[in-house]
């Protein structure tokens, strides 16, 4: 890419004995919306704080627009942060909350004193600030709330004021630390599109931390999946979903979780679960163990047995209105499997305790014993779909 | 850099704060001649400790006085909790006629310090012949509206479900207080106990009024008697007496520092 807006280079961080971040390298393009997603404890919030300057890295550099700011304190980096708990000043009104960052930057200590407003120069500066606060409030539709204090607002309203406080600064970057986690589900979905909309209008690079993979996939230009202090993969949402580089990425992304079958490799690159061959042309050493990943929407279930199929036992069916989830158990290791299908299709399976599962060869994701993605060799030896 | 500055300031303050204690102990070990010698030495050249401490113990019945203090403070605390806890529970969790009146009385009690109503209490004690007894030192303080107020705040936070479950198990309200509320309110109770002990150990006003016999004195009054008995400036013996009298609570504090500090803080913030 052209010079990245934010480049986190080789970042490592420990807290006491615990290694929290290791070998982090992330380049974010100007105007890009990147989501940092992963389970709690994976280090994503720490990475965000390092980018902000609230925490120094043990090693590595933070580079903003080509400038190394690693030694620069957060207040000088011109980045705005939105916190999970909003961190609004409880004793100030929404207006004052939003005006504060501007006042701190444009007025010096003397000019911030109450009576300094008598001086015309100061008054001009202050009214400029008020105007910008008003327009940001307009954009976020919180103008009627401006004179309220945080305690007099709902969670969603506080969220918007926190966004306003960040927006009003026209900063170099937005850093958001799970800003929607404290909101109820319906509001969350609504605020997601608002944030994306704001990002588009402001055109400012955004680093967005969340543990909700759906949020990450839905909002970001690129998603960085983190686990155990490392970035496992950075790619567009679609790529992350269809082409995960690691079994952990595949497991974390997607709901319901991806189905994983443990299989062993026989001659000819064939993956076997017990006596059943499920796939071939797998580029892994014979005798090794691999895992086959099949997304629920790709898992097919049929009453009849056949080649490339695995016998499974039907556990239960969940009818969820628009779709149904069929829960079953694999023969052999007894791994739980979930298949996603239209309710009508699920209905036909109802009275069959013994079923057979298979998937399109192209939908199979193969991971080696370390969890890395294993490619398929090109020679086609089996047809694309399998008949009974 | 700023840490060094901070430590310097805190250290300097430490010296200022501990300076009375240091001199207290040092002077208690000096004979009178050295005390008057106007020198700042801390270690005495001659040991007057035996003399001073003997005087401290014999001029007034020191042991008796300390025991009085312990008996009075302990009894006060026990009674305070025994009376306050059920009342606080009633105010916090029960609905009954007269609740507002009772609570108004609690607020009144918070406003009116014991000093203000000492006169009629004294007159009553005198008439009843209760002056110069340990009982008179205890009885006026058995009512602690502060305890009622504090416990009420605390008990309000206890989930109602707990109490409803106990009731459906057949517990009487009194049983609820002692079997459910007390264990749950233990932090508040122990915090209050610390607060009450410190306050009443220190109390001078009421003992000064109600007691005139030395063997019934509590530590503060005992020390006043000592000062009166001591002719002139025998500071060595006076310091010895203060060391002995201050030691119990200070030692207790040093052993249970967290308990103390957290207790006093909690009563302060909740009260």
């Amino acid at each position, binding site marked *: 890419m052209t010079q990245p807006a934010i480049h986190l280079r080789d970042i490592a961080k420990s807290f006491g004995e615990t290694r929290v971040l290791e070998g982090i390298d992330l380049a974010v393009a100007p105007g890009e919306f990147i989501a940092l997603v992963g389970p709690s404890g994976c280090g994503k919030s720490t990475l965000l704080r390092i980018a902000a300057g609230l925490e120094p890295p043990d090693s590595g550099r933070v580079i903003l627009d080509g400038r190394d700011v690693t030694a620069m304190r957060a207040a000088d980096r011109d980045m705005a942060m939105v916190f999970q708990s909003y961190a609004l000043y409880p004793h100030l009104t929404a207006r004052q909350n939003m005006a504060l960052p501007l006042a701190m930057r444009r007025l010096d200590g003397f000019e911030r004193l109450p009576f300094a407003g008598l001086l015309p120069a100061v008054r001009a500066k202050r009214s400029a600030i008020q105007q910008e606060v008003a327009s940001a409030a307009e954009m976020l539709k919180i103008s009627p709330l401006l004179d309220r204090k945080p305690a007099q607002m709902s969670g969603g309203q506080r969220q918007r004021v926190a966004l306003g406080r960040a927006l009003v600064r026209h900063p170099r970057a937005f850093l958001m630390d799970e800003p929607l986690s404290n909101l109820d589900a319906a509001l969350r979905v609504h605020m997601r599109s608002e944030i994306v909309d704001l990002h588009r209008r402001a055109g400012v690079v955004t680093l967005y931390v969340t543990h909700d993979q759906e949020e990450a996939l839905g909002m970001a230009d690129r998603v960085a999946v983190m686990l155990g202090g490392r970035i496992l993969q950075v790619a567009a949402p679609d790529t992350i979903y269809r082409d995960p580089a690691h079994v952990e990425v595949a497991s974390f992304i997607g709901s319901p979780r991806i189905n994983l079958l443990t299989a062993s490799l026989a001659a000819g690159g064939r993956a076997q679960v017990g006596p059943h061959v499920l796939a071939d042309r797998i580029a892994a050493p014979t005798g090794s163990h691999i895992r086959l990943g099949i997304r629920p929407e790709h898992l097919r279930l049929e009453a009849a047995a056949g080649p490339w199929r695995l016998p499974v036992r039907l556990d239960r069916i969940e009818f969820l209105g628009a779709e149904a989830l069929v829960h079953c158990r694999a023969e052999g290791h007894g791994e739980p499997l979930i298949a996603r299908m239209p309710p009508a299709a699920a209905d036909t399976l109802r009275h069959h305790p013994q079923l057979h599962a298979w998937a399109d060869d192209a939908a199979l994701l193969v991971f080696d014993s370390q969890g890395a993605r294993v490619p398929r060799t090109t020679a086609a030896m089996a047809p694309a779909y399998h008949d009974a | 850099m700023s840490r060094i500055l901070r430590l310097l300031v805190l250290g300097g303050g430490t010296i200022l704060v501990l300076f009375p204690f240091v001199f207290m102990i040092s002077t208690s070990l000096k004979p009178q001649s050295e005390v008057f010698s*106007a020198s700042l030495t801390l270690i005495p050249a001659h040991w007057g400790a035996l003399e001073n401490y003997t005087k401290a113990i014999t001029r007034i019945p020191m042991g008796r006085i300390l025991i009085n203090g312990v008996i009075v403070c302990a009894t006060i605390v026990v009674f305070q909790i025994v009376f306050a806890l059920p009342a606080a529970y009633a105010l916090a969790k029960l*609905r*009954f006629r007269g609740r507002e009146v009772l609570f108004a009385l609690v607020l009144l009690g918070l406003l*009116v310090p014991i000093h203000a109503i000492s*006169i*009629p209490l004294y007159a009553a004690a005198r008439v009843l012949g209760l002056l110069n007894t340990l009982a008179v030192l205890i009885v006026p303080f058995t009512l602690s509206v502060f305890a009622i107020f504090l416990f009420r705040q605390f008990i309000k936070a206890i989930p109602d479900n707990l109490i409803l479950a106990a009731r459906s198990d057949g517990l009487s309200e009194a049983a609820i207080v002692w079997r459910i509320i007390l264990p749950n309110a233990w932090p508040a109770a122990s915090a209050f106990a610390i607060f009450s002990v410190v306050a009443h*150990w220190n109390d*001078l006003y009421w003992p000064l009024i109600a007691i005139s016999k030395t063997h019934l004195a509590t530590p503060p009054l005992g020390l006043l008697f000592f*000062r009166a008995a001591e002719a002139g400036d025998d500071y060595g013996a006076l310091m010895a007496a203060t060391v002995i009298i201050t030691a119990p609570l200070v030692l207790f504090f040093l052993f249970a520092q967290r308990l103390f500090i957290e207790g006093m803080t909690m009563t302060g913030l909740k009260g």
Partner: protein
Amino acid sequence: MTPSPRDAAAAIETRAAWRLAGPTALLMLLLLVLPTLAVLALSFTDAELGAPDITFLGLDAYTDLLSDRTFKGALRNTALYVALVAPASVLLGLGLAMLIEAEVGGRAFFRSVYFLPVVSLIVAMASVWQYLMHPSFGPINLLLRMLGFAGVNWLGSSDNVLAALALIGIWQALGFNMVLFLAGLTAIDRTLYAAAEMDGVRSAWDRFRTVTWPMLGPTTLFVTTISVINAVKVFETVATLTQGGPAKASETLLWVIYQEGFVYLHIGTASAMAVVFIALLLFLLVIQTRVLDKQVHYG
């Protein structure tokens, strides 16, 4: 007519409540209500302890009081004492708390050290201070002379005695205020400081003004109220060290009430003073909670 189930249940609850609160209510009556009424009643008389005759003075009792030189002096001295002790012990307590809070390693040590005066018997420590403040061989004056200053007649001079007592009062109260402020400081949400940093709040002073001081509002109010009320109630140091002297310069409210009621046995006058005392405390409480409460931000 049988009562409805709801009324019956309410009656049972009422009975149970009074069984629980009954003893306390009785104590309140005997130890609080009746004495307060008695003090109020006595205040309008010229009763003397031990003397059988009583004259009802009515409001004259109070007008006499307010022109009484001793009482006015006591009010003035107490006000001066409070003005010296309360602000100093509050501000110093806050400063100490902030320093200790920032200090990670030695925190527990310093906390206990500064709290030590609070658990030390006031009467005893007052005696120690008397020794320290002795004009000829007290260490304080010795130190001052060593540094080239003249010694000060602390407790023996009517000009200095209130200041001396105030010094002891501050020393005694500091630790308690510090501990309360510490609790308040640790309760402040850390993310507010992070947000302030992101907002460009750089200096320690700005951090204090933007986050610390506003968030400490309730604590500061509480500490100030307690400090003022405790300062008004000063007694032990006066009774131990100065007995109101020299030349009535350290006569404070409680001392004067004690003297009037229990030494001179004018319980009528003493009761009137006690009523004024209660009124003063009430007044202070009301001001602090009403006026200052408006500025306190409960977040």
